[in-house]
């Protein structure tokens, strides 16, 4: 028990919370047809994170979030500028901007000496869940002990705050987002401008990228952003259910991924842990495949008979393979 609390509880919580934050925000990306933005921003915030880390010298959230937001906005402006000057398709311009900024981030890590402190290329690629330990834990009693809880890794607490803020914001903008997602023309016509909305999405995604950075790194965060929403999309047409299902998928992805990565090696006798961030993406992939193939809209219909699309949606279920 003590070992679990010391070594596994913080990473497990961090993985779950990070996936929940990203998974909920990912719905906005998917529903406003901007999944590529997640791809672009997750790469492009890297120089901002590195500079924030370099200037502040700590892993405290505010400077990193500020740096990441600045980088995300710079990336969005650059994409707009280059698109205007070159008149190329958005995908190409995004590819240019995000690979350039990611390269800048990688070089900055080496040049600024950030890698000597705490931030290295491995963290960018794989996340650093194993660094989240809670050495103050001494048995189950520590969960109620304020002194021990004060030692709990700050990254997890930050993630919890970000999750609370995300949920509050989604609840606040529930109707507006629904309108913007399903009827953008009408939303525009009644003055709910798409520009502030895309700025909001930009800011939220960069916050999510920073929040999840220590847990999953800056590439696997794309899986956390896009996969839960896509799984839910493959299961339901209802707006509310979309959010509920994506949250469930995100929780399974985070907790299940960490669990499989921590337990599988023992079961297989490998004696060496598997990478938890990568495993979360794999778990998400398995869930996605299950949802696409066996979901109500897939080629294999429940009950073994072909059904029309307009038929009432069956109760969505998560595939058993997930956990």
């Amino acid at each position, binding site marked *: 028990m003590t070992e679990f609390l010391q070594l596994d509880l913080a990473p497990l919580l961090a993985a779950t919370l990070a996936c929940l934050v990203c998974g909920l925000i990912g719905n906005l990306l*998917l529903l406003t*047809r*901007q*999944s*590529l933005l*997640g*791809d672009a921003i997750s790469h492009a915030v890297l120089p901002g994170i590195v500079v924030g880390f370099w200037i502040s010298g700590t892993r405290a959230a505010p400077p990193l979030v500020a740096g990441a937001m600045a980088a995300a906005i710079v990336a969005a402006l650059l994409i707009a500028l*280059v698109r205007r*000057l*070159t008149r*190329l*398709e958005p*995908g*190409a*311009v*995004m*590819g*240019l901007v995000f*690979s*350039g900024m*990611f*390269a*800048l981030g*990688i*070089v900055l890590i*080496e040049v600024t000496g950030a890698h000597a402190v705490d931030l290295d*290329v491995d963290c960018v*690629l*794989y996340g650093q869940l194993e660094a989240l330990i809670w050495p103050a834990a001494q048995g189950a009693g520590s969960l109620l002990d304020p002194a021990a809880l004060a030692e709990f890794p700050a990254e997890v607490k930050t993630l919890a705050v970000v999750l609370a803020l995300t949920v509050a914001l989604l609840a606040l903008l529930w109707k507006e987002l629904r309108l913007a997602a399903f009827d953008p023309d009408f939303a525009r016509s009644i003055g709910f401008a798409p520009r502030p909305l895309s700025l909001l999405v930009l800011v939220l995604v960069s916050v999510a990228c920073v929040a999840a950075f220590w847990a999953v790194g800056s*590439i*696997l*965060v*794309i*899986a956390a*952003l*896009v*996969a839960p*929403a*896509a799984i839910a*999309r*493959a299961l339901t047409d209802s707006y509310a259910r979309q959010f509920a299902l994506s949250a469930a998928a995100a929780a399974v992805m985070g907790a299940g991924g960490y669990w499989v*990565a921590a337990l599988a*090696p023992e079961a297989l006798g*490998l004696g*060496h*842990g*598997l*990478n938890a*961030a*990568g*495993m*979360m*993406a*794999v778990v*998400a*992939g398995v869930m*996605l495949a299950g949802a*696409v193939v066996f979901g109500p*809209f*897939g080629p294999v219909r429940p009950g073994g008979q072909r059904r029309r699309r307009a038929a009432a949606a069956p109760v969505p279920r998560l595939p058993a393979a997930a956990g």
Partner: protein
Amino acid sequence: MTGALLDALLFAGGYNATVVALGCAAFGLAAGSLGCFVLLRGRALIADAAAHATLPGVAGAFILAALAGWDARSLPLLLAGGAISAGAAVLAVGALTRGGRIRDDAAMALVLSIGFGLGVVLVSVVQSLPVGGQAGLKSFILGQAAGMSAFDARLIGGLAVLSLLLVALLFRPLAALCFDRDFAASVGLPVRALDLALLGLMLAVTVAGLRAVGLILVVGLMVIPAVTARLVTERLGVMVALAGVLGAAAAWLGAGLSAAAPNLPTGATIVLVACAMFVLALVVAPRRGVLAFAWRQLRLSLVVARDHALRAAFEAAERQPAAGAIGWPDLGRGAGWSAWQRAVLPRWLRWAGLVAERPEGGVALTPAGLAMARELTRRHRLWEHYMQSAGGLPPEAAHRAADQVEHTLPPEVAMEAEAWLRRHDPARLPPAGGLIRPGEPETERGPR
């Protein structure tokens, strides 16, 4: 560091370093020129997804080789694994979008991240295997040209040259495919096969770049030189050649830089060099660059201010033929010049011989200036009449609307407007031989 950089760039760093630099440059050449087609066909992001998804293949091939007792560091084997999983990724994108519930952008993001995640898990399996060379796998993620053997470099160069030859061979059909797929199909080109060939070439070049540039940034070397070339030229042939040269230069310079500073990951260095070229082109490109754009805007604003001044002078002469000279301040104010235009325009007008200083003070239009001013005023009134007659605008609005179009629309359009007026409302047509010379008896005047 400078010495090592020069050595690397001038092929003086020894046989191995020379072969590595040449291999990287060959890859850059192939990536840049193929990138143009990838870009124009809108496949840049699927190339990125495929590149990220090479990781499970590379790591899987490593594990297989280690279990089978082969040399797990053999580059051909690892690259073959990468190509297989990248191909599977392309198929997966297709499968995900087939139902129509997941759009292709989401599908690419999913395949990219889940493929990479699977690769990361397999890499962590590799770490636990009791064989050597695991650290080498990391060079497939961010690229490391420094440790490459001459054999590896030759393999990469060979793959790149082969792709390049195929691109040259398929140049015309690929160009037709990229510009208009329907047209290409209608003239009997096998568009599906060509699309497949483009995908295959893209995979080959991606895989060739893994070792040197790394799977995360390899798409950068396809996209960035192509976009840079696009800024500079409008012609496909020039674009492909230029992108190839830029890609080769970036790869060669970047590989040299990272040889001189081994801490720098090669892929990131190469991509940053390519980005520097892009930024340079963005600023100085002849037609689409920022400078050219600013120059065009500046020129247009000067031309507009000049035209306004000439028209103001002409209309003043029309009203008071005897007045003669006008002062610069009146002219400038009448034409709405801003401060910097007041500083520049008098000189320009005098230099162009459109106005001349009068000995008694003030300026007057020269004969050339008068001719131009008459033509400009006629054009303005033509547009005013056209806006009133064809557009039904009231005179004041017609004046403003005419002001917005007359400076930018080409003369042919003005002639069309004139032809329209001649057909539909000839009474409004300003006199064809130009307006009345000021001082002559007035017979017909415009609306103002």
